[in-house]
């Protein structure tokens, strides 16, 4: 499974929506329910899935899925 596939699975699971497909440009504006709480839930889920640890501030500042992807890759995903 590619990183893209795994990202999509996580987003679909966190937001309980199997129709979600993300790309690097996807932001919180594009997904219903992606608020500050969901952002934290996303972080926990991604860290768990990819067995990585991302600094709180870095993830909090990630503006789109592309930046989240880069953080995952930088930390070993």
């Amino acid at each position, binding site marked *: 499974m590619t990183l893209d596939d795994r990202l999509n699975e996580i987003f679909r699971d966190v937001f309980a929506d199997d129709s979600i497909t993300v790309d690097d440009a996807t932001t919180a504006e594009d997904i219903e329910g992606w608020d500050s709480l*969901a952002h934290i839930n996303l972080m926990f889920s991604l860290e768990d899935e990819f067995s990585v640890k991302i600094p709180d501030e870095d993830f909090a500042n990630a503006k789109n899925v592309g930046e989240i992807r880069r953080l995952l890759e930088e930390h070993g995903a």
Partner: protein
Amino acid sequence: MAPDPRVAHDGLGELRFHHLGFVTTSCEREAQTLALLGYQPEGEIFTDPAQGIRGQFLVGGGPRVELLEPLPGATTLDPWLRKGVKVYHHAYETQLLDDAIADARRAGARLVSAPQPAVAFAQRRVAFLMLPSMYLFELIEQAGGGE
């Protein structure tokens, strides 16, 4: 002697329970409702623009409660208000706030709000962390803490 149940003895050093955070759209209406359970105001309603909230502590009906209502235009409490959640955080006092935060992060909690002075606590610093189970908790620096 049995340990004081109000003081957490494991994990994050010595924490003293302070309050449950209770989100509401109206502190006044919520206080009236909780009076049915024996709660009475502890102090006046306070406003904290930095946190985007107005709040009030209540005591008497059980654990101390901190009612929190969003200020106009503030969105801090929106995720819980949207979900209809009422009790949304536990809060504890600690003598060594920075150490407690570091311990919590080592144990897997995520810092969601860095320490900042809080009106509710006479400008003592508070920080908010999220447990991996997605439950929020607050750490409050005790008076004289960090010395």
